Structure formats: structure tokens, C-alpha cells
């Protein structure tokens, strides 16, 4: 028992970052009569990593979409604290502002890298797009930043002009991460970021993510069905079943001393290798 290196929080209080970044209150989403997720509330602070775990169909992706403005919740509120300290309800903001937020202060890492990358433009342009979107107009600087980020995600700098089509699954996923982090977002959503990768590639990916999250002090909401991923990356966990939150708590406490029957079942289902 020990919490993972590098993730012992990011000095939330120390840097005066003691106010919630994202507040979710009473969020529900219904697909007709069917429940996507029901009455979910939680607060996320700067630098915190929250794992939402559960089996497929438990509503975790619906919840992720509801809080990342990709899908409007049927009821409930999501508020976000901007860099200037103002707090806004995401669903009362204009679309322009919401989309701007998504490509500057936020990131979204998809399970399938093809959903988050432009497959027909070079790796450099994939990383540089967000910079150009916020007005960077110096080719040399864009390229320098892109090279820097490729190195950070362990992609050789000489692959900068190759298209992601020529990359392996693991490289594509690392590229997607670089593309998201280049604008130094404060909050990154991840949907099964290691889902389609084989085990050794997954380990490298997790290690890379762990390092980046700690170095950059990112707040992360990560959806995963893999409890090992949750243990390695997250501070806190939220267990979902049938659209509802079953249990929340400190990651290591929840895994080592699960309280709810369902969490115990989930934890006992981890394969011991």
C-alpha cells in the first residue's frame, strides 16, 4: 500500500489553488426513458485526478460527455472556474466561448486516437493546430513548440512531418496527448486513454501520463474500466453502476478497503498477475 509517486497531489493549497475548478451538481442524463447517468455531484480541484470507474454501460462515458460540454445533461449544473477567477455555468455560456474553452483551457483525449487527431495532416500540424487556433502566426515558433512536445511524449523529432496514419497505436495516442497539452490546459478529460493498447505499450503510456500530469499540475477526469489505471493515475475514484455513483473516495482507500458491495465485487475481479 502506497500512493503512486508523483501523484501525491499538486500543492493545491500551497499555490492558493484552493477553490474548485469544476463543480458538478445533480447532473442527470436520460436517453428517453433509459437512464444515462443520474444525480451525479462532485467537485474537482486544480491538480486533482479523478477516476470514474465502472463496467461498460455504467454511465461513465455519458457522465464524461455531460460534464465536458459534449452532451447537454437533462438536468443539473456544471460550473467551471476560469483563469481570471470567474465561475460560469457551462451550459449558460455561448457556444463560441464553450468551444474556445475546449481548445485552450481544456483537453479531451479519446480512446481511439483517430477521433482526436487529424489523420491526414502531419504530426507537427496536429500539435500546432491549437496554437494556430489561438492566434500563433509564426511558423518557426509553432514548429519549435511542436518539436518540444513530440519529444515530451517520446516521439522522435524527425517524425514531425509524418502523418499519424504512419504511426503505431501507442504513438498516435501519445500524439493525441501532445496535441491536447500544447496550450497548457488546466483540465483534461480522458476516455479510456489506454483502452486499445497492448499491455507493454499501455504501461509506457501510463507512466508518461503520470509524469505529465504531475509535472504540469493538470486536473484530470479519467474514465476507465481498468482499476490498475485508476490506481496508478488518480487521487480519487468514483465507482458507477447503472448510471449512479455507488461509492467515492481516496483511490487507495477505495481499492484497499472498498465499502459498497459492488465495489468489492469490482475490486475482487482484478486479475492478479
Amino acid at each position, binding site marked *: *500500500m*502506497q*500512493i*503512486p*509517486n*508523483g501523484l*501525491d*497531489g*499538486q*500543492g*493545491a*493549497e*500551497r499555490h492558493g489553488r484552493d477553490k474548485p475548478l469544476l463543480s458538478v451538481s445533480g447532473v442527470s442524463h436520460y436517453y428517453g426513458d433509459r437512464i444515462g447517468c443520474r444525480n451525479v455531484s462532485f467537485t474537482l*480541484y486544480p491538480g*486533482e485526478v479523478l477516476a470514474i470507474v465502472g463496467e461498460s454501460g455504467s454511465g461513465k462515458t455519458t457522465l464524461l460527455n455531460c460534464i465536458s460540454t459534449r452532451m447537454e445533461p437533462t438536468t443539473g449544473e456544471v460550473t467551471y472556474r476560469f483563469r481570471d477567477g470567474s465561475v460560469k455555468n457551462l451550459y449558460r455560456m455561448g457556444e463560441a466561448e464553450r468551444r474556445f474553452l475546449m481548445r485552450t483551457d481544456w483537453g479531451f483525449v479519446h480512446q481511439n486516437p483517430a477521433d482526436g487527431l487529424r489523420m491526414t495532416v502531419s504530426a507537427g500540424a496536429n500539435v500546432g493546430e491549437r496554437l494556430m487556433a489561438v492566434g500563433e502566426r509564426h511558423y518557426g515558433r509553432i514548429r519549435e513548440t511542436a518539436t518540444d512536445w513530440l519529444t515530451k511524449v517520446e516521439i522522435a523529432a524527425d517524425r514531425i512531418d509524418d502523418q499519424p496514419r504512419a504511426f503505431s497505436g501507442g504513438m498516435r495516442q501519445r500524439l493525441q496527448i501532445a496535441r491536447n497539452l500544447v496550450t497548457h490546459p488546466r483540465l483534461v478529460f480522458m476516455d479510456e486513454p489506454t483502452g486499445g493498447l497492448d499491455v507493454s505499450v499501455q*504501461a*509506457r503510456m501510463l*507512466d508518461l501520463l*503520470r509524469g505529465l500530469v*504531475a509535472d504540469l499540475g493538470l486536473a484530470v477526469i479519467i474514465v476507465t474500466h481498468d482499476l490498475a489505471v485508476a490506481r*496508478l493515475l488518480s*487521487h*480519487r475514484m468514483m465507482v458507477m453502476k447503472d448510471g449512479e455513483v455507488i461509492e*467515492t*473516495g*481516496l483511490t*487507495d*482507500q477505495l481499492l*484497499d*478497503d472498498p*465499502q*459498497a*458491495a459492488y465495489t*468489492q*465485487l469490482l475490486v*475482487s475481479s482484478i486479475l492478479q498477475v
Partner: protein
Amino acid sequence: MVPLIVSEATKSFTMHMRGGMEIPVVAKVGFHVGKGECAVLGGPSGIGKSSILKMIYGNYLADSGQILVQHHGETVDIVTAEPRKIIEIRRESIGYVSQFLRVLPRVSALDVVAEPLTSNGTEQAQAYERASVLLERLNLPERLWSLPPATFSGGEQQRVNIARGFVTDHPVLLLDEPTASLDAANRKVVIDLINEKKATGAALLGIFHDQDVREAVADRVIDVSRFAVQKAA
């Protein structure tokens, strides 16, 4: 202020997968650990000593009672604290040395040891400096420092773990058999480290099965069998 007070803390496990079977562990645990003191949890194995440490660290959730920790002049009850608060307390106020190192791929031994310092804002260079001093005292060959501990022997991993636990200046330090797989020379180093911690005013609470180590560091022994619950038959 007393750095650590445990009052009427009770812990049991409910095994939902076995029809909700209740397994009591400890009940009404009460003790305190003062500044500059090393208290040792005593009693036969299986009596709940590790569980008490884990409750204090927030790894196990106590059913009832209070676990009061001094955190930057504020008294926090671990039993009811928010996860976020517990993470902060672990970073700054309660250290923990477990029996086993949770190894991560690709992170060097030196980084493993220095990390608790860098995560609370210490300069990288200074963190490495302090980490190096400890690894050297614990006789970990310098050629290993830059390697990930995954391939180390049990004793080497344990020393990395001890260095990681001792590198910070947490006012409360929990030790779960830190000397279990060490040779006599390194056990001596750990005894010295514990005594130095005590001298700085830290409150230490440990489990030591090794008689020699226990006698060398313990100011008093807390007999855990007092809190043991009649196990379900």
C-alpha cells in the same frame, strides 16, 4: 499540541460477497503519540497492528471514532476528512514506510526517493541532494540510483522505500516493519534514522517484529491486544 491522537477508533470489514459477513478487526483503539516520541504497536500477528497504521494513514476507513492529526496547526480528523485533505496531509504531515515498495516502471531509485520532496515544492537539486545522502547512508550502491527499482532485490527495494519515507520532515511518521528484510548493518542505519527523527521532534508510530530494533527505538509499547475484538467463529 499532540501530533497524533487516536480515540475510540473501530474497524471491521463487511464482506458483501460472503453474504455481508462482518469481520471485526479492532475496537475502541485509543492512544496518542507525542513529539519526539517513538511508540511501538505490540502484540501477536493478526491482531490488527497494520490495520491501525492504515486507518491513521487514511488507507482504511474507520467505522467510528476519531484519528486526530496536527496539520499545519490545524487538528484534522482523518476518519471524516475529505480525500483531498488526506492527500494534502500525506504530502505534508504524515509519512508512511510500508513493508513493500510499489514499484513503477521507468522511474529511477533517486527519483522515487526525491519525489515526496519535489511534490511539496522543494527544489529538484536540493531534493536529489537529500535523497542521495539517505541512499548513501543506507548503503545502496550508487550505480543503482539511476535505475528503476523494479529489478532490485527485496532488501534493496526496502532501502529505497525507507529513504523515501525518511527524506521528508513530516511531523508524524508511520513505520510498518521497515527493517523486515534488512541485514544487521542496515538495521543499524534505520535505528539511527529513527533516533534522529525523534530528536527533530517527530512523532513516530511503528510496528517492529525485530526485538533488537524495537528495544533500540521504542519509548513505549502500545499493546494492541487490548483493542482486539473477539473474532467471529
